[in-house]
């Protein structure tokens, strides 16, 4: 499994698109918001938590189809499925690699982007905390969507339609956690972490069933 994670990271770096594409997309999404709603700093400060979370979510979504698609196309997935590693282990490794390539940089990039949106000073700690415990859930849920749509040509739109509803609870709790004035950010943070842990524990098995059905 370690070698699978390392290989995915290496591939992401080699193809160049990996980190940079996700981060540029995150920047653009966040940048579009003031263009759309106006540069009123008070308004921006109020909507910043939601915008940053939605931006993170969309940037994550952008790279989901690469999780299994490339390996599916060149026969690697078949070979992996017949290797001694169980499919749930493969899904775990792939989702972990996806998190390192997207979730982690997004969490870090959210800090300067928060400044652009005039995020309140006290909110930064909750922003970083909620994104760092919430993005693993995004990667694992996303891997599930990618596993389901791996056999479908041009399945990108369908993938978004399947994955975005699954992101709803994470988004609601995560964005609410960053919003200053919510009374119990620590409680919300714990709930986001709970969703992430739940996803890490169980989603790989759902991924395995989906991959198995697709490989048939």
């Amino acid at each position, binding site marked *: 499994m370690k070698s699978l994670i390392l290989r995915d990271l290496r591939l992401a770096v080699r193809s160049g698109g990996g980190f940079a594409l996700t981060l540029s997309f995150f920047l653009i999404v966040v940048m579009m918001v003031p263009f759309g709603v106006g540069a009123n700093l008070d308004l921006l400060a109020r909507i910043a938590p939601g915008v940053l979370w939605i931006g993170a979510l969309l940037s994550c979504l952008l790279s989901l189809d690469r999780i299994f698609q490339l390996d599916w196309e060149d026969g690697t997935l078949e070979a992996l499925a017949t290797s001694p590693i169980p499919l749930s282990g493969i899904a775990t490794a792939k989702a972990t690699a996806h998190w390192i390539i997207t979730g982690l940089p997004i969490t870090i990039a959210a800090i300067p982007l928060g400044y652009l949106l005039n995020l309140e000073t006290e909110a930064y700690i909750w922003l970083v905390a909620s994104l760092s415990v919430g993005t693993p859930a995004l990667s694992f849920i996303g891997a599930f969507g990618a596993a*389901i749509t791996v056999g479908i040509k041009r399945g990108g739109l369908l993938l978004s339609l*399947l994955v*975005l*509803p699954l992101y709803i609870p994470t988004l609601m709790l995560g964005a609410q956690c960053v919003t200053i004035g919510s009374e119990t950010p620590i409680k919300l943070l714990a709930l986001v972490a709970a969703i992430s842990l739940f996803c890490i524990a169980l989603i790989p098995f*759902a991924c395995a069933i989906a991959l198995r*059905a697709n490989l048939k």
Partner: protein
Amino acid sequence: MSLWEYANPAKFMALSARILPYLAIASSCLLLAGLFWGFFLTPADYKQGSTVKIIFLHVPAALMAINAWLMMLVTSLVWLIRRHHVSALAAKAAAPIGITMTLIAIATGAIWGKPMWGTYWAWDPRLTSFMILLVFYFGYLALWEAIEDKDTAADLTSILCIVGSIFALLSRYAVNFWSQGLHQGASLSLDKEQHVDNTFYLPLLVCIVGMVLLFLTLVLIRTRTEIRSRRLIALRLRGI
């Protein structure tokens, strides 16, 4: 004689053909009677006037919107565990009916909401949950349509339905945190039901039973259609 025997398509077709007419007649009689009773034979509420009577459509539709998803969850599990083809097809058959019920519930809710709260739509926890349920239904059906091989589609939609159920449930409770303080105490229809007295309660019960039977009738009809279309595929492959 076990229940599972009816999971055989041929047996299912024979049995469903026999009970469908009765089911259809019973559901239409009950629904018509219940709605007529509810709309014309109950007194108008002293506070809400006659608008309250929309509950006779709203509550049964909302109940069935959720129950249709629950039925899909159960049949999906049966397919994944016991590989009964009828089960997977019944799940597929139920989805569009569930969507219709959800839409009816949202629409009647909006019509009722306007005179009661002065707005067609609010991001109230319960309304939001129904909107989320609707999106889950759309994703589920879209996946069925996107995959060519029927058994693979059944596998994938089943696992999506199971995972989706978990996250729909999570959303249902996450919504409470999210809309805290926005629409406090805006709970409506379902709590209301508990205070309704018998003059409203009985016709409502008739409507609910009628709606359950209507749902069963439609699911059976649609499952039969699905089975027939699978038979056509099988015959074509055989080259007859």
